[in-house]
């Protein structure tokens, strides 16, 4: 069966975990792992038989057979180099940086509408874990306001996250509004250093417009969304089922990672990568269905 070749730019933790997820995919095939210097990640990919390069996006474009590229570098690199170069070459960008050149994508909510986009952005790990729930609430009861608290283990918060906490809270809050369809959004992130590391836990609190629809309807909508999420994030779990008090709906979820490359407690990294691969699968399925293969 035909497969769509993908590239990964950025062979760090995120890029390496993405690679293992691509290995498992039925539509996708690793075409290249590209970095800008020799690194552990490059060596690992080469050892596993993946073509590698230290020429960055240039190598991805020059291969000529890459259809989709994951960008796991930085917002600055995506805006300046990778995004424009990929677009010019007609390669679909799945952007895991906070650059957000293209629209936000949360697969269980809006992937269907984005499958023709040249550049989609994966929001944040906290956004991938919580926005589906915000949307599940807003689609049945409306949402005046939604607030999420994402707790991740200190060990799974990389230097990028640590150097720019505002980027996380602000990006997530924006996507709560644009994708989750709440009128207003707020995001809080907590790093917890407990050892052994805690699993990623998220609390979603929403002020609904129509509490009269009742908790049963809200629950049904949330349960359906959780089932949809579990299709690409098997470790996604409700910890505290939906609770309605007045016009406030509270839900607590946890995300256990699949342990592909990163340990299971880093559910935060697993969910953003799983979402990115789910998006690539959908896009590649459309390419394959159209017979649009190189």
């Amino acid at each position, binding site marked *: 069966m035909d497969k769509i070749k993908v590239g990964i730019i950025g062979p760090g933790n995120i890029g390496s975990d993405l690679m293992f997820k691509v290995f498992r995919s039925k539509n996708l095939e690793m075409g290249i792992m590209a970095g800008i210097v020799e690194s552990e990640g490059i060596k690992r990919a080469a050892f596993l038989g993946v073509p590698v390069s230290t020429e960055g996006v240039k190598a991805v474009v020059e291969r000529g057979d890459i259809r989709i590229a994951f960008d796991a570098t930085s917002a600055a690199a995506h805006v300046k180099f990778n995004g424009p170069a990929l677009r010019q070459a007609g390669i679909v960008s799945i952007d895991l940086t906070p650059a957000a050149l293209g629209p936000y994508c949360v697969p269980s909510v809006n992937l269907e509408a984005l499958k023709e986009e040249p550049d989609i952005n994966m929001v944040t790990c906290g956004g991938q874990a919580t926005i589906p729930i915000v949307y599940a609430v807003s689609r049945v009861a409306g949402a005046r306001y939604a607030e999420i608290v994402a707790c991740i283990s*200190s060990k799974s918060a990389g230097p990028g996250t640590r150097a720019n*906490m505002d980027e996380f809270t602000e990006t997530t809050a924006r996507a709560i509004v644009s994708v989750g369809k709440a009128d207003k959004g707020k995001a809080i992130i907590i790093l917890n*250093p*407990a050892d052994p590391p805690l699993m990623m836990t998220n*609390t979603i609190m929403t002020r609904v417009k129509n509490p009269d629809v009742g908790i049963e309807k809200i629950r049904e909508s949330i349960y359906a969304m959780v089932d949809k999420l579990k299709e690409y994030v098997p470790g996604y779990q409700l910890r505290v089922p939906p609770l309605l008090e007045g016009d406030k709906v509270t839900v607590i979820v946890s995300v256990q990672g699949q342990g592909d490359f990163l340990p299971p407690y880093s559910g935060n990294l697993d969910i953003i990568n799983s979402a990115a691969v789910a998006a690539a699968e959908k896009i590649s399925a459309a390419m394959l269905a159209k017979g649009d293969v190189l």
Partner: protein
Amino acid sequence: MPKSNRVTLVDTTMRDGSHAMRHSYSTEQVERIAEGLDTAGIPIIEISHGDGLGGSSFNYGFSETPELKLIEAAAKKVKNAKIAVLLLPGIGTIENLKAAKECGASVLRVATHVTEADVSEQHIAAAKDLGMMTVGFLMMTHMASPQRVAEEAAKMDSYGVDYINLADSAGYMLPDDVAKRITEVKAAVKAPVGFHAHNNLSLAMANSLAAIEAGAEYLDATLRGLGAGAGNTQLEALAGVLKRKDIETGADFYKLMDLAKDAVDPLMLRPQVIDNGAMMLGYAGVYSSFLLHVYNAAERYEQEPRDILVELGKRGMVGGQEDMIIDVAYQLKNSAKGASGYTL
């Protein structure tokens, strides 16, 4: 370590005290307290939501009056004092900081969990760019060894803060624990060091004195001790104690006493005592502002507050994780292991 004969008092009645007020401060209340503190010679007055800028939320409680309005009102009333704001990266943002500066704040205290100092670099740099005095504030310092506290403080020192503040956010430490941490940090940083106590085990004053003995030059305190959990070091009492010790603070003991009686007593929502829940915070090492949220959850889930607090301590929850109170209460109810047979 030679002790300093001068200590700078930092009032946080309208920040830490905001927890005890369930974030209900009005503009008039803040104006009156700020003016009184300024007149009584307190040089730094902190005002923000209890969880810092941007803390108004479902998770921590919504502010009845927007904090920016309170900051602006206080800034207009003070002549000599500087208005400080607290910011916890992950909750507040640089945008919030800029807005607070516009309203008259001139000191930023950036608070992180004791092991996570590196998340403060961005916010400290932003405050320095804005020309503000900056303070690195390490929370829950009982959860790390004195050596680790010093390493984290050194990071904040390298970002260029004007002083480092160590907080015993759970009111867990004994005077010896405080002295060890202050001593270790002083040896590792260039900046002066300060201390923020909670009174959950009735040790706020003793710990504040231990901090000074070990070389602390800044102390946080609140009128009537108003603050999260069993509250903080009581400002007016501290002013009296430091007077007795011949330590210069510039504070007027009588004016502070009068201010506490006239402006704070009438607005307190509950007596600032060490009730059993507060005591358990200190004993189990749990973040002080969890207390009132725990009481709410205990009632809703028909659980014993003490069991919830102990479980939160066991799980190693840190500042800001108020949402996990619901999680713990729910899990306790479901496991039906909640009842200890005692009521608080």
